[in-house]
């Protein structure tokens, strides 16, 4: 593969983009063939951050393997945990208390906002605007503080367990989330003021990295990447899991398919998440936060699959069980991997300066791509 890549035609130049030190986090190596400043071909080179999570899971019990998935998509640890917990519950047919369901959705949507916040800041920073990063982190800090108080960790929470959640919400949770909603609603307008309307930003984003609807489907892209191209693919809407079926929210769709459309989808999704939180925060039912489960979980023999909507797209958890206490095989269908595969198609013919504008809107989290 490398020989093929390394032999260039006349006038073409090959450059390597990306850090290669294994101790840095989120290492993505791109081999780019350039003609002048125009990108002819782009090949992602994965494997720098492979931790063989899927293989590790095979030796862990159904309670233990959930914590490793926090380390996949570390910006949406709750939602990864949720997917695993749902798969185990589906296999064992465990009924979840209503309170646990509501808490799960609340923290998941908070995570979604936090993840989009970080993406928004990092993306604007990639394009040369430094201050949005601090604005984004100001709001994200409030969410991580809420998470720290309720779940005990800021990033790798491990809060969802098969049967419910690990602990009841902190007494301050409802009040702090309500404060956050009021604060966030005024501040999301600041984002538009600061970045969305900015002429330099718009010129760099519009008509860059166009992904047509057909290509979005054929590359298997999901999440905001596909919804920016007009593909309806929100798992919360089309295959509702947990209590998403009972909630009122819109699936955000844009049809342009360029970087700016994907940007708009994510910013609008934050507003949708806030509306979901608003619907639930006053209606947390009383009751248990965890269903009674056996100390040792044994899944029946068979294959189980569950998918959820993470901030980056569709995450699938596939468990093959032989009836024991550990899975025979686990496969995660990560959203980032398929989204990254569309990058070569989107970037061909563009200038190298547009690379960050396109890569930024894919919202790549490398540990999620390379498990």
């Amino acid at each position, binding site marked *: 593969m490398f020989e093929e890549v390394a032999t260039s035609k006349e006038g073409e130049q090959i450059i390597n983009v990306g850090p290669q030190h294994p101790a840095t986090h989120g290492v993505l190596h791109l081999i780019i063939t350039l003609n002048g400043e125009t990108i002819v071909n782009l090949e992602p080179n994965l494997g720098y951050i492979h931790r063989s999570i899927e293989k590790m899971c095979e030796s*862990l019990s159904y*309670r*233990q*393997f959930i*914590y*490793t998935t926090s380390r996949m998509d570390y910006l949406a640890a709750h939602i990864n945990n949720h997917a695993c917990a749902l798969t185990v519950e589906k296999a064992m047919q465990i009924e979840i208390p209503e309170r646990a369901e509501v808490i799960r959705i609340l923290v998941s949507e908070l995570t979604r906002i936090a993840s989009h916040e970080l993406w928004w800041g990092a993306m604007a920073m990639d394009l040369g605007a430094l*201050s949005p990063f601090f604005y984004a982190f*100001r709001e994200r*800090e409030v969410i991580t*503080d809420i998470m*720290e*108080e*309720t*779940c*005990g*960790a800021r990033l*790798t929470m*491990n809060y969802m*367990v098969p049967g419910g959640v*690990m*602990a009841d919400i*902190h007494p301050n949770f409802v009040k702090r989330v309500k404060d956050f909603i009021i604060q966030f609603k005024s501040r999301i307008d*600041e984002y538009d*003021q*600061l*970045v969305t*309307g*900015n*002429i*330099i930003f*718009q010129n760099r984003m519009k008509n860059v990295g166009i992904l047509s609807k057909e290509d979005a489907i054929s590359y298997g892209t999901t999440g905001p990447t596909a919804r920016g191209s007009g593909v309806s693919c929100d798992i919360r809407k089309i295959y509702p899991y947990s209590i998403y079926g009972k909630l009122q929210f819109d699936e955000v769709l844009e049809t342009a398919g360029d970087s700016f459309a994907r940007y708009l989808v994510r910013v609008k999704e934050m507003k949708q998440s806030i509306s979901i939180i608003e619907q639930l925060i006053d209606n947390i039912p009383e009751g248990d936060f965890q269903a009674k489960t056996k*100390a040792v979980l044994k899944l029946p023999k068979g294959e189980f699959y569950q998918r959820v909507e993470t901030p980056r797209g569709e995450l699938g958890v596939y468990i093959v069980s032989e009836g024991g206490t550990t899975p025979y095989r686990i496969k995660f269908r990560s959203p980032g991997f398929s989204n990254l595969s569309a990058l070569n198609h989107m970037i061909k013919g563009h200038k190298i300066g547009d690379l960050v504008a396109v890569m930024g809107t894919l919202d790549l989290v490398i540990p999620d791509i390379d498990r």
Partner: protein
Amino acid sequence: MSFLKTYITEVYGAVKSLLTGMKLTGYYFTHPKEIITEEYPDNRLTLKMADRFRGEVVMKHDDNNEHACTGCSACELACPNGTIKIINKFEINAEGKKKKAIDAFVYHLELCTMCNLCIEACPTDAIKMAQTFEHSVYDRRLLTKQLNLPGSKIREGVE
């Protein structure tokens, strides 16, 4: 003429969009009270971590240097990383019967991922998460800790 008009409108729109952003930056520049930066480590004395913050596993001891760990190894089994190792011994009690008790509760902080599964698994509520977070040391052997204090013994009545 229309070309000139479009050109001027575009330039006006562009300058306006830049100024809108600058206005916001200017607002926060002149209102430093809205800044929420925490100046760690200067605020170390007043910094309070959340009650549930998972810093490291510690064993609860009361004033009489007694703990509630029976040495059942539930935490050792629950741990995904092999962080906990319990070494048991047999004590002969007053009635002359052999009784299992912990000799050492060995905890490898360097392997721990703070997943809270051991605390969930403990049937006697003997261990808990401490809110410490400054764990760095110069020698990694210092990260392997014995959680039961020297001379401590199991509390009466804990089975």
